């Protein structure tokens, strides 16, 4: 009987978690505060990721460029071009993470992931992005 009560209690807690756990003050201020917390967490996570990746990634990109400029062998050059193209894709992804300024998610096969895609008109040109 007691075990059953415990199970019921756990279910209750579980249900409550699903519904709404905001404090009274938060409820009165609406959803803005929660959104603000989510955005702050997202900004911290994206900035941390960009920061941690930047140095090793700069070194790899730099050496690929140096090898590309020096290499005379056609096949090596082709492969280096492919590596550089892929590195540029990662670089653009990091740029998207760097410029995140709102909390927006998108559905990826039933999982909510951060939507970092910006509108076309918001995208800075190459010069603005690299040197201010």
């Amino acid at each position: 009987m007691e075990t059953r009560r415990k199970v019921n209690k756990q279910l209750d807690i579980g249900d409550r978690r699903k519904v709404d756990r905001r404090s009274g003050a938060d409820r009165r201020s609406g959803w803005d505060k929660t959104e603000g917390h989510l955005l702050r967490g997202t900004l911290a996570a994206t900035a941390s990721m960009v920061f941690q990746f930047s140095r090793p990634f700069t070194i790899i990109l730099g050496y690929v460029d140096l090898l590309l400029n020096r290499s005379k062998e056609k096949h090596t050059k082709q492969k280096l071009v492919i590596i550089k193209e892929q590195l540029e894709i990662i670089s653009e992804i990091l740029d998207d993470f760097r410029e995140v300024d709102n909390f927006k998610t998108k559905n990826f096969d039933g999982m909510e992931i951060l939507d970092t895609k910006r509108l076309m008109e918001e995208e800075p040109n190459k010069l603005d992005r690299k040197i201010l």
Partner: protein
Amino acid sequence: MSQTKASAKDVTMLNMKNMEVLLFDNRNDQSLMIKEMLKQIGCRVSPVMIKHDCLAKLINGRYDLVLFDHSIPGLDVTSFVNQLEIIDRCMSVAMMVTLPSRFYEGKYGCSGIDYLIFKPFGYEELLLLVREAFQSSLKLKKIILNKWE
């Protein structure tokens, strides 16, 4: 006067090959790569790993560009840039950064940092920075020389 004219001529004859870059980075792996890229661009590079060496080099020599990393532990960027400005106002100052641009605009917008270069960057971005810095440094030198004349 003749000395000033000779200096002005020297300045106009300057090209990218003569550009002196002081590279301040506490990480050897990154510094080595950037040094190699700058050499390929045609600059003369002096790498330093500590602030004291950086300031000592600036006092004893002439540089067109100082390139330093924002993530050097314990470096007070504002005070460091102020010291750079006191030593040489004509020199361009560039900082390697990683965080969103809004962070730097708010914090260092009024400091003497002329350029921000966002990591990760490659040869093209560095070349663009060096070219811009060189032109800016050249303009400032010309203005100062004209004032003397």
